[in-house]
């Protein structure tokens, strides 16, 4: 597989993570991202994933993974044992967001959070004009089968970081394959934040 065929959010995270880092991916799915980080960047990677089928795919790639949900998956990891903890498209699916982020900052120096932007223009239009819970590319679920427990916008997440004394080191915005530069809260379908919390 070629790099430019990789999912755009994976390409962004790939660019963020330094070579030979220790990486923990919470909600690592089939392990695609961890695999290229391990192979190309010589990262020391581990994953946590709830889906059994995904665990088999991760193991087939040679990855070390822990079959668990994220809310319970971090107990046992020593403090500061990772350079990066990745929560890509998974934070909005966890029950205890505060707790999961606290734990992520406990075990990792930096936390990379990727989430779908619920204030994305097509989402707003769907809700406003059609009066229906939006189903879009980045939010492909119906209200009855969505794993997303929390609905947040880019602005919401910035406010959250401010309130929780979390430093935002980088922000990346995507709409499909494209990078978004202006008015991300309106035009970005996905956001990826790099966070640290040294002041705790």
């Amino acid at each position, binding site marked *: 597989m070629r790099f430019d065929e990789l999912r755009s959010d994976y390409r962004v995270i790939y660019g963020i993570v330094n070579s030979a880092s220790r990486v923990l991916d919470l909600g690592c799915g089939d392990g695609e991202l961890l695999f290229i980080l391990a192979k190309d960047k010589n990262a020391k990677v*581990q994953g946590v994933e709830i889906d*059994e089928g995904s665990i088999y795919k991760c193991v087939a790639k040679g990855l070390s993974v*822990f*079959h668990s949900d994220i809310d319970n998956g971090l107990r*046992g*990891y020593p403090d500061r044992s990772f350079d990066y903890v990745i929560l890509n498209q998974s934070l909005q699916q966890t029950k205890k967001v505060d707790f999961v982020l606290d734990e992520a900052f406990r075990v990792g120096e930096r936390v990379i959070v990727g989430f779908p932007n619920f204030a994305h223009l097509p989402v707003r239009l769907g809700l406003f004009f059609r009066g229906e819970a939006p189903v879009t590319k980045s939010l492909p679920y119906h209200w009855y089968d969505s794993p997303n427990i929390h609905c947040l916008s880019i602005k919401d997440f910035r406010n959250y970081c401010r309130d929780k004394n979390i430093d935002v080191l980088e922000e990346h915005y995507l709409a499909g394959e494209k990078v978004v530069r202006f008015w991300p809260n309106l035009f970005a379908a996905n956001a990826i934040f790099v966070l640290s919390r040294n002041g705790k």
Partner: protein
Amino acid sequence: MADTAWNGGDYYGKAKPERGLAVARMIGHITYMSDSSMEDKFSRRLKDDNFSFTFKGDFEVEGYLRYRGDSFVKRFDANSYLYITKAMDYFDLSGDNILPPGSESGVRFLVIAFKSDWLYPSYQSQEIVRYLKSKGADATYCEVSSTYGHDAFLLEVEEETHLIKHFLNKTFYGYDVVRSYEI
């Protein structure tokens, strides 16, 4: 041991403690199955059409367990069973036992649990993995969703083969030979 024929372990050349060993195996066999596998296999089915109103085994599950107990004594020695049971009682993976200090580096662990196994419950396997992780060891954990109870380890061959094969491949050859990798 409650079987008088056991005779403190000295029964060779005499009557064997068959009843005691058979009962032990019958109790053991229940722990190898799960609630749902018991229900599927036996439920409340009767061997004959009606209750006998005697103490003979009316239910299929009774006949099955007795058959298991009786056939076990033909191929297993009571003292061996006791020694193995004792050895398992003494076996303890908790604390530093699984990973003696100084042995952390370079060892990879694969821990497989089965959802319906109440003899070796998955939460205990998770504790092993959490302990390994707390020591910085490289551990992989998978909980296979099987309804076969403890017996699953003999039956879920495909899943186990997949996990163990790829785990060993990575251990011996690293990421580069993950040939079957496709996206």
